[in-house]
């Protein structure tokens, strides 16, 4: 089904001393997809990620990027072609925002004009006014701004792949939600293949096209979000999912667009693209058995509570 994976891990393991941190993991990531790797601390998820850009060398197995065995590429050359964003951001404190974003383009020898244009375009993409931010030092940025600069720097040379290790871990919950939405939107536009490591199952479900669950070095399940919620492979996966409200997790993944039917409904319309979960909550809260749906002010039809409820059933 997946003919041409962007990233392919074949039977990779990593042993530190006597400890096997990653054990015989095989995974494929399709071009343009987001794979989220989720697990508790010590599950080997970060080591797994770091084997893709040779920050850690596998003890066994092969990693292919774009069809090429990465052992045939010098590490620093490989890394310049793969974006890398981490929890602590790791911005260079002695360099301005523009210089930070320009690190990889400069290493690649882009000319000045092209770098400046790229920096401004990226700042714009992350909703930061280039004139106001270009010459600031990282110390003069908020946590959310530093996070965005960290991702902008990772994307600067337009890498086909972006590796992210808990990129939102240090953000407060409100900014985190926005940062996830921004990442998703930017990824849709650029088509970048992303592998994102997180300990937060909600984050994994929201961002991932596919989700890989790691437990003590083993890959215990790899599936799309609905399948993971519907059929957790082990108790560990079930525990990560949080047990009780699987129906609502499933509803949060889906939007109302496919459930729209013709017919009238009372009250203010909800916008198309609203999640099933949010629509059901609105229906319950306002005691309406059906809600009108509109897109850009145009009424599309309605969704009924029964249709919404049906989305919570086990797949």
């Amino acid at each position, binding site marked *: 089904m997946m003919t041409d994976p962007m990233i392919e891990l074949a039977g990779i393991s990593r042993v530190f001393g006597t400890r096997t941190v990653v054990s015989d993991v095989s995974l494929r990531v399709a071009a343009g997809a987001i794979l989220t790797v989720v697990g508790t601390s010590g599950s080997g998820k970060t080591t797994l990620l770091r084997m893709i*850009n040779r*920050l850690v060398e596998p003890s066994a197995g092969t990693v292919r990027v774009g069809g090429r065995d990465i052992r045939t590429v010098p590490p*620093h*050359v*490989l*890394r*310049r*072609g793969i974006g*890398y964003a*981490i*929890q*602590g*951001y*790791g*911005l*260079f*404190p*002695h*360099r301005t925002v523009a210089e930070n974003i320009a*690190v*990889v383009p400069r*290493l690649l020898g882009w000319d000045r004009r092209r770098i400046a244009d790229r920096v401004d375009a990226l700042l714009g993409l992350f909703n930061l006014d280039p004139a106001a931010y270009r010459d600031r*030092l*990282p*110390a*003069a940025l908020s946590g959310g701004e530093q996070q965005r600069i*960290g991702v902008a*720097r*990772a994307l600067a040379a337009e890498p086909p792949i972006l*590796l992210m290790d808990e990129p939102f871990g240090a953000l407060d919950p409100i900014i985190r939600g926005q940062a996830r939405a921004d990442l998703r939107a930017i990824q849709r536009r650029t088509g970048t293949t992303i592998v994102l490591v997180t300990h937060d199952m909600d984050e994994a479900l929201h961002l991932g096209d596919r989700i890989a669950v790691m437990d003590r070095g083993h890959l215990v399940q790899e599936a799309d979000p609905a399948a993971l919620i519907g059929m957790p492979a082990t108790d560990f996966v079930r525990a990560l999912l949080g047990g009780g409200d699987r129906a609502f997790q499933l509803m949060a993944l889906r939007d109302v667009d496919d459930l729209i039917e013709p017919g009238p409904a009372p009250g203010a319309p909800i916008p198309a693209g609203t999640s099933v979960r949010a629509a059901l909550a609105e229906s319950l809260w306002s005691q309406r058995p059906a809600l009108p749906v509109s897109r850009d002010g145009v009424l599309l039809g309605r969704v009924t509570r029964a249709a919404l409820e049906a989305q919570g059933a086990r797949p």
Partner: protein
Amino acid sequence: MSRAGALAQGALLVLLGTFLLTPQSFAKLFRPFAPGDTAPIYAQTPLLTLTVNHLLLVAGATLAASVLAIGFAVAATRPAGRDVLPFARAVANLGQTFPPVAVLALAVPVFGFGPVPTLVALVLYGLLPIFETTLTGLEGLDPALMDAARGLGLTDRQRLVQVELPLALPMILSGIRLTAVIGLATATIGSTVAASTLGEVIISGLLTGNTAYVLQGGLVVSALAILIDAGLRALELGAARRSGFAS
């Protein structure tokens, strides 16, 4: 730095300059400290010449100590150089704990009289502060920063030159400042083995019981130490600002 501090340092610089260029105009001031009718101002060698030689000796020693100590510290913080660390530490510590006078005594038979034994003693004595502060500066870098630098594709050399050394610079400069200031005072003993330093004035004063000479040598060295300390502190502050630390 406060305005008053800068002003005081400016005044000290002017005073020192005036004294070195026209020492005789201060004769009255030192008269009470000179016994009998001996000359109140040291005149065997011009004070300006001694000061310049003193500064050159300390500058040379500080430069050599900086190159060696920074080199040691860089080597000791590379993955392959972890084994060097205990050795480098031992050399630096030995240099610091071995009395400079003893170094002079040991170096004279090898290098003969003159400035070289003093230079050797000053270099050895100056290694430790620079080595330790450089080590602290390099090892204290944010691990996330180093990980990002590696993950973005900087080579080992690029990381050292573009990230590690610039960020450790304020610490390195503080070590160089310490070494320079200690060296200024220590260099005076070089005159016991015929190095041309301001120690000549002090030793001559001690031998002839002329307190005025001792004061002249001592005060000029102190003034130099204060001014050089202030100058290097200003450099450090500038480096720290550029590193994005101070805000």
